[in-house]
């Protein structure tokens, strides 16, 4: 389905749920591979929170759409072009620093977005945001702390974090893109205009990166497309793994 034909609020819920779903899957790929046990546990817990939030957002998308699709149907039975997550969350994990930087840039946006959604005029949206924001506050605390510790750490950790920031930076801008659905939702008081979140994100990210002694890249280019279903090759590989069971054995249950 062309994203332009999806009703604004459904499109919004899909975007929120696809962001958390794909990032959750990416983060879960660290399970058993993190540099230290505590980080392995933390990554798995963050992935778990995100999958719980996915169930709420995609569940609401299915309800609002009214075609009888469950959160699982939406997660496992769409192809890449129907996913509306930003490109940032499908970026490969890379090293621990790249995973962490991606998480930090996302958490800062996610917390700002959810905080604004707590006063949404649509009660079901406000309810999900109020639940999720408490969990995301912990995500942001952790990723900020680690970005500072590793950025302002050894020469090796600093160099890796600076390289990670360089790699991810041009993917952050898409989180603030605006289309006609966003305009309609902002008008109705359902969700904020994503561009309006940018000053707060800039301030938050700027403070943490300064404390981490990391230099913000002087590059204003923005990689975009995910929000309208145009993805990098990485998403297809994620789906081939994530959706395998339902594709090979439709309606499998246990």
């Amino acid at each position, binding site marked *: 389905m062309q994203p332009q034909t999806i009703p604004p609020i459904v499109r919004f819920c899909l975007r929120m749920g696809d962001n958390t779903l794909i990032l959750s899957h990416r983060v879960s790929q660290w399970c058993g591979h993190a540099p230290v046990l505590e980080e392995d546990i*933390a990554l*798995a*817990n963050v992935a778990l*929170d995100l999958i719980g939030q996915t169930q709420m957002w995609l569940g609401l998308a299915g309800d609002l759409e009214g075609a009888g699709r469950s959160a699982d149907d939406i997660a496992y039975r769409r192809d890449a072009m129907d996913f509306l997550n930003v490109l940032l969350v499908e970026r490969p994990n890379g090293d621990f620093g790249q995973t962490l930087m991606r998480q930090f840039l996302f958490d800062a946006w996610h917390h700002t977005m959810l905080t604004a959604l707590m006063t949404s005029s649509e009660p079901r949206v406000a309810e999900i945001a109020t639940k999720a924001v408490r*969990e995301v506050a*912990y995500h942001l605390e952790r990723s900020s702390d680690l970005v500072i510790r590793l950025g302002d750490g050894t020469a090796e950790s600093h160099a890796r974090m600076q390289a990670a920031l360089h790699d991810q930076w041009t993917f952050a801008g898409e989180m603030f893109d605006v289309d006609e659905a966003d305009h309609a939702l902002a008008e109705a008081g359902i969700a904020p205009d994503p561009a309006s979140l940018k000053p707060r994100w800039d301030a938050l990210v700027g403070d943490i990166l300064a404390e981490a002694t990391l230099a913000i890249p002087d590059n204003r280019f923005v990689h975009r497309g995910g929000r309208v279903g145009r993805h990098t090759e990485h998403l297809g590989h994620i789906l081939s793994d994530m959706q395998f069971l339902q594709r090979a054995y439709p309606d499998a249950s246990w």
Partner: protein
Amino acid sequence: MPVGEALIPVETIRNWLNEVPDPEIPVVSVVEIGIVRDIAFDGETLVVAVTPTYSGCPATSVITIDIEAALRAHGISDLRIERRLSPPWTTDWIGAEAREKLRAYGIAPPIDGTASTGARIERILTGGNSQVECPRCGSAKTEEVSRFGSTPCKSAWRCLTCREPFDHFKCI
């Protein structure tokens, strides 16, 4: 369905559910931990509203099954379990008695009245009581090892006095 089921007082049902242990922390019940939000009859159907602690907590579905099994064991067959998101679950709903049970079990309980977003940080900044005490020796000389612990609701700590590691129930 037994005749006159709807006459069972809600308090009795609450007492039954108070016997259902939390699957991850069996020293406290699903009522004590604040997961059971409401017990009411809709006509002859018993409706129990349950709220998830963390949205992805895998124990939530187990809790739903345990509640249903307990009620059926007490002879209730006409029942419905509803998920309620609002108001969101908070550690402030864990009562004083349950906090002591957590401590005796080796889990440092959440800090009182710090659950709502931001309040914990504010309390730390204003020098309020934000000490996490070692559940074993009671020392306030403790440090956080990791913000995420063995379950979504806990963080990992260690005591600098008795050197024991312990779990802390995160404030949310």
